[in-house]
């Protein structure tokens, strides 16, 4: 095995080991979307009328509508959690160990990203399984075709987390990330309500939702769950992944100095 693959395996194993050690994180990541699914959705169901929009062929319940958005929520929160743990790693110094390994920095960051995405995808599937138990079910094959969509979404949002972590100087500043990244991304998307509903509310809101990369991640998952490929969503998500990864690699460029930023 080459040094590259050995490092990839070790970084993934470390992420997994860390994840296993943080059971609260696993539970929190599941409880959040489940509360939305089983509590909020029940209330919203009556208030929100949904028309038949692709990829749906028939009327669906609100619970069914928000499942892809809640999968996206898991990926989004996990991406930000990765970002948080990277800032923590930098404050604790363990980021230095990674960054001084004799491998290209871009590869090391990519390994970190793959590790966190695997965990995100695992969490999303756990959520889908629980939803299934509550009779919120997709086509059987949809669970398989959703895998690449979840992986791409996880990579994109994880790369966003990496890019943010290179800019956030201290752990304390992370509340700002919650307020200015997670909440706007989630609420200004098609996760909870279809975009035509947003268009009714206002043109500007609709435009913001349409260009929000998170909307495209959610739509990619939504279509994939129904065995369809939304090419526009795929293109935007891939584009988002490339941009965020480039920003992350730029952010961790030694010419800019991670230890200086960490101070």
């Amino acid at each position: 095995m080459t040094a590259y693959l050995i490092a990839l395996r070790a970084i993934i194993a470390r992420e997994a080991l860390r994840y296993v050690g943080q059971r609260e994180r696993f539970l929190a990541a599941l409880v959040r979307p489940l509360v939305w699914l089983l509590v909020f959705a029940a209330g919203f169901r009556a208030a929100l009328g949904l028309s038949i929009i692709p990829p749906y062929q028939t009327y669906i319940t609100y619970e069914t509508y928000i499942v892809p958005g809640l999968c996206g929520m898991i990926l989004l929160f996990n991406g930000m959690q990765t970002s948080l743990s990277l800032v923590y790693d930098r404050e604790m110094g363990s980021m230095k160990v990674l960054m001084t390994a004799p491998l290209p920095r871009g590869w090391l960051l990519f390994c970190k990203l793959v590790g966190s995405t695997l965990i995100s995808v695992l969490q999303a599937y756990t959520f889908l399984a629980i939803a299934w138990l509550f009779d919120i079910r997709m086509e059987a094959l949809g669970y398989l075709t959703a895998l690449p969509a979840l992986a791409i979404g996880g990579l994109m949002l994880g790369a966003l987390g990496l890019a943010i972590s290179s800019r956030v100087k201290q752990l304390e500043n992370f509340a700002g990330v919650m307020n200015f990244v997670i909440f706007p991304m989630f609420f200004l998307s098609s996760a909870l309500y279809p975009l035509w509903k947003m268009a009714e509310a206002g043109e500007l809101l609709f435009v913001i939702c349409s260009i929000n990369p998170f909307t495209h991640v959610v739509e990619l998952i939504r279509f994939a769950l129904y065995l369809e490929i939304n090419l526009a969503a795929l293109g935007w998500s891939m584009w988002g992944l490339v941009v965020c990864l480039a920003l992350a690699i730029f952010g961790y460029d030694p010419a800019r100095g991670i230890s200086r930023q960490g101070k």
Partner: protein
Amino acid sequence: MSGLSVQNLSHNYGSKQALDSVSFEVERGKFCALLGPNGAGKSTLYAILTRLIVPEQGSIQIAGADLRKTPLIALKKMGIVFQQTTLDLDLSVRQNLRYFAALHGMSGKVADRQIDAALDRLDMLERAEEKVRSLNGGHKRRTEIARALLPNPEVLLLDEATVGLDTQTRIAITDHVHRLCAEDGLTVLWATHLTDEVRSSDDLIILHQGKVLKSGTALGICGEKPVSEVFMHLIGETQ
């Protein structure tokens, strides 16, 4: 060929000059103490030597490898012990070392053999399965030195490796690193602000306000006088 060569190194943090035309050489197999008060620029120099920062000016050779032109080869030749503990506290000593070994391209039995040998060298083998969180400061440091030795580096860089340790442990660790230098031919750069860690046979660089004030052998710089006296005198002169 020198073990470590630094030429004309300068770096700023905005308007603050952290290092100003720093140049020095450490011969292969020599223990070189880098002595400077807090804020002298030692940590910036280490961040540059380990490529966490790329300097604005200057060149660095690690056992003949140019850090700017061939960074991955240069990184392969160095072992690093940072000032701050960089171990994962929730993993065991062996798990920490395995992770590090993998980052350096080692896995399986090869890695296990290297880990056992490195821990044995630092008298840490019997603690291999203990969680790092349960180790005392001295043992954590030993673990970090063992980890730095895993890829068989030619140059070992230690940034205030004894900070926060009691005197007895400090002496033990300083002795250990001196032995590594003498027995294995490692080139060592040992940053410290504690003058009692410098031996008369060591090379010595005195860094202050980002500049090299003196460089040579400790004996040549200090003669019969205690290092602390010469150090305080030199620092005082510049203020």
